[in-house]
């Protein structure tokens, strides 16, 4: 059964079009991440689902009910905000029970739910404190608790971890994942952090300019990005793109612009459809799918190049180089020592690259 269904949703702020004709269906119990750079409309979409913004056109269904005109509180959603948005003059308990009091629930029921939620999030000892006396991580836990007590079908997260430091972020990320496994309700999570997206999501919707560019499970998004933007957005360090042409004789061959001694044979790359010869393309290679040294010799494509810049990151080392005047970078094991000016042998498997049309940047 579908938990949320968005049909032909549009939203304009005066003349500015933020969302256009957006369709999205989310299954019950699914964890969907809306991912995109700031200004792509992901938070706006979340606010529309929450009922905090009036839509210009289209419909929103939650649990099969048309809630397009419903107030936020009537939609059966709980929401967690980036800035926590705790009521500063209320205690943690007051924060948790505010929504329940507004809903007119009996006292015992409120007590029960607050107790349950605070146990689940391990904030029982903080119930009497004011938000100002809590750390960032505790505040965000309380904010999650506020959504939890409402006992709703759908959770909405608006960049909930962006205000936390890196260590806490990873901790709470796992906790949110555990929470989802335990509750098994639908969650929509907005973020600009692709690691959060990859780790949490059942499906990721990559957005740009109010459109969903690709909606797929994390693996597909990572391995087979639908276009050059998605490919560059997902993965860190990002994918590098080489400009060139594909020549199709008996097999497809990649010719680098600017000249290169190699002309990789792409016959084990899965093209979406058969490709014409002389097609101008971007060849995208993830830094982590490049191998070096002895292993490289076994790869279908291997060649040697000169190291220009070395960036050690601990576990890995990022190496910058050039192929035929175009920037190229790859990751090697942090224990291998390389120096600027060294020549190393590298290789990759064309099955693991992504090829995009030069003009419309769609996957080929």
């Amino acid at each position, binding site marked *: 059964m579908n938990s949320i269904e968005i049909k032909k949703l549009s939203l304009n702020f005066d003349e500015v079009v933020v969302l256009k004709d957006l369709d999205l269906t989310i299954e019950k119990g699914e964890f969907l991440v809306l991912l995109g750079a700031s200004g792509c409309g992901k938070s706006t979409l979340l*606010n529309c689902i*929450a*009922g*905090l913004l009036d839509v210009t056109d289209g419909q929103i269904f939650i649990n099969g009910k048309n809630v397009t005109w419903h*107030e*936020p*509180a009537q939609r059966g*959603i*709980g*929401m967690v*905000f*980036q*800035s926590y*948005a*705790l*009521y*500063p*003059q209320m205690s943690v308990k007051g924060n948790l029970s*505010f*929504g329940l009091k*507004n*809903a007119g629930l009996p006292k015992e029921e409120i007590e029960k739910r607050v107790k349950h939620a605070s146990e689940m999030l391990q904030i029982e000892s903080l119930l009497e404190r004011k938000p100002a006396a809590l750390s960032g991580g505790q505040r965000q836990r309380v904010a999650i608790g*506020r959504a939890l007590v*409402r006992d709703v079908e759908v959770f909405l997260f*608006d960049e909930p971890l962006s205000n936390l430091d890196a260590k806490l972020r990873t901790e709470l990320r796992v906790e949110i994942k555990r929470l989802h496994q335990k509750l098994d309700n639908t969650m929509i999570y907005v973020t600009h952090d692709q690691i959060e997206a990859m780790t949490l999501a059942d499906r990721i919707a990559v957005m740009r300019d109010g459109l969903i560019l690709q909606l797929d499970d994390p693996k597909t998004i990572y391995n087979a990005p639908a276009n050059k933007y998605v490919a560059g957005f997902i993965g860190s360090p990002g994918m590098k793109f080489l400009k060139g042409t594909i020549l199709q004789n008996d097999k497809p061959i990649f010719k680098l612009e600017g000249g290169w001694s190699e002309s990789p044979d792409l016959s084990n790359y899965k093209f979406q459809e058969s490709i014409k010869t002389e097609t101008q393309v971007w060849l995208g290679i993830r830094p982590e799918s490049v191998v070096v040294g002895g292993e490289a010799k076994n790869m279908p494509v291997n060649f040697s190049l000169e190291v220009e810049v070395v960036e050690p990151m601990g576990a890995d080392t990022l190496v910058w180089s050039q192929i035929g005047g175009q920037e190229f970078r790859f990751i090697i094991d942090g224990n291998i020592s390389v120096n600027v000016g060294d020549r190393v042998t590298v290789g990759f498997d064309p099955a693991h690259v992504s090829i995009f049309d030069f003009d419309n940047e769609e996957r080929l």
Partner: protein
Amino acid sequence: MADSADVHSLDGPRGPKPRKKLSRRNIILYGTLFVVAVYYLIPLYVMLVTSVKGMPEIRMGNIFSLPLEITFEPWVKAWSQACTGLNCDGLSRGFWNSVKITVPSVVISIAIASINGYALANWRFKGANLFFTVLIFGAFIPYQIMLYPLVIILRDLGLYTKLPGLIMIHSIFGMPILTLLFRNYFTSIPEELFKAARVDGAGFWGIYFRVMMPMSLPIFVVAIILQVTGIWNDFLFGVIYTKPANYPMTVQLNNIVNSVQGVKEYNVNMAATLLTGLVPLAVYFISGKLFVRGIAAGAVKG
């Protein structure tokens, strides 16, 4: 090796940079501050000492000298016996009139203006900007233009010369600036808080009373100070829209000080003036800290 020992010893500048206490800059700065402070305090000093002197001592003409003999007679007389026209019950009547005018005016104007500001900041209804512009425009129209039309309106409403009429006038004239103040303050409160309250099912009034108002103590204090001092010190509206029995303290003070019959009792006048100024003075002293905080908080966003 001697060289390297020099490098490691801690000769030369170390720790905080020393600052001269008696630098030329400090002397000029504090000197100026001192002179300005004295300049402003002298009139107050003269008033205080004169108000506790007897008339014979005042006639000697040493207005800066301390009193030879302290008497509180002038204060008592100013409060309960000084004459304005035919009434000789002192400033006390004016004081109570002022209280009866100030308290309801302050409460009504702040209640309405804070709700206005909240609605304008958070519930952006259609035409909100136009409404706000019109309201702010009201702050720039000189009062004199509206004096006579208001007399007619009050007369037609049957409120002319009555206290409720004056209260209404004060509440209306406080509206533009107070609304601006509250709107700016509420705009500075993170919008997510408002959204969270809506998701939690709080309505217009629920959010106002349970979320916004408890967070806004500083701005309420600022509004109270502005209104209490403004309305208490008002002379123009008091003298125009009331009659002698309802005159506020300021108008009565003027009538006492400017009465032409009999001897000029400087000590009584000084005491009466100090008594009238006591309320705003007390308000400033009690709430000075909150005032600054609130003004600053409200001023951040436009």
